[in-house]
């Protein structure tokens, strides 16, 4: 599902996927991520628009991606 949306939003939203990894500089710790999956939606200015813990429906994720600015 994420792969599909990555193709759909190619060039518009950058997808960074961290599998079995806390990301660069322990980003998961910085963001307080405790559970997987966790999705963090980030605006162009770097501000966090939304942090969702747990699975998301494709349509909900699409709306969250479209809402980013």
């Amino acid at each position, binding site marked *: 599902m994420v792969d599909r949306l990555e193709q759909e939003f190619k060039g518009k*939203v950058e*997808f960074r996927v961290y599998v079995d990894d806390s990301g660069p500089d322990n*980003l*998961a710790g910085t963001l*307080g*991520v405790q559970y997987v999956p966790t*999705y963090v939606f*980030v605006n162009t200015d770097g501000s966090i628009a939304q*942090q969702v813990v747990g699975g998301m429906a494709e349509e909900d994720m699409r709306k969250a*991606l479209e809402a980013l600015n």
Partner: protein
Amino acid sequence: MAGRKWLIWGAVAVAVAGLAYVVSRPSAPAAGDVDASAFAGLVADGVRVIDVRTAGEYEGGHIPGAENVPVDTVPQTSQSWDKTQPIAVYCQTGARSANAMSYLTGQGFATVYNLRGGIVEWSGELTRGSAAGTAAGAVKIATNGTPVLIDFSGSA
């Protein structure tokens, strides 16, 4: 004799007035779910208020003075909090903050309040604006000129 009688009646009147004051004076509600009116009293009393919604929800409107600590970051962020200090939590409808209250109580926090029904029940003043300076707002992610989705997945 008459003077003594008046003295007794006077003492009775003072006792009754004192009892009425004790019964009617406002006091802090018991910890747990509280309605919006009681929650407003806690805010007025300067109780530490935690908004456990997302940064985006917080920025859309929050109770003045509330700190933004998204519910999934509560376990980490609350490690530095004083467990003897009363804490009042809220979210949009009361569900996420009920989980936060349950977690904090389980961790030994003495007095935790939850706004029953969430901020939708709140009729007081709201502040709009950035969560900058709070736990969520302090984090900035480096971008390459486009929005980013960060996916922390358990497996490929």
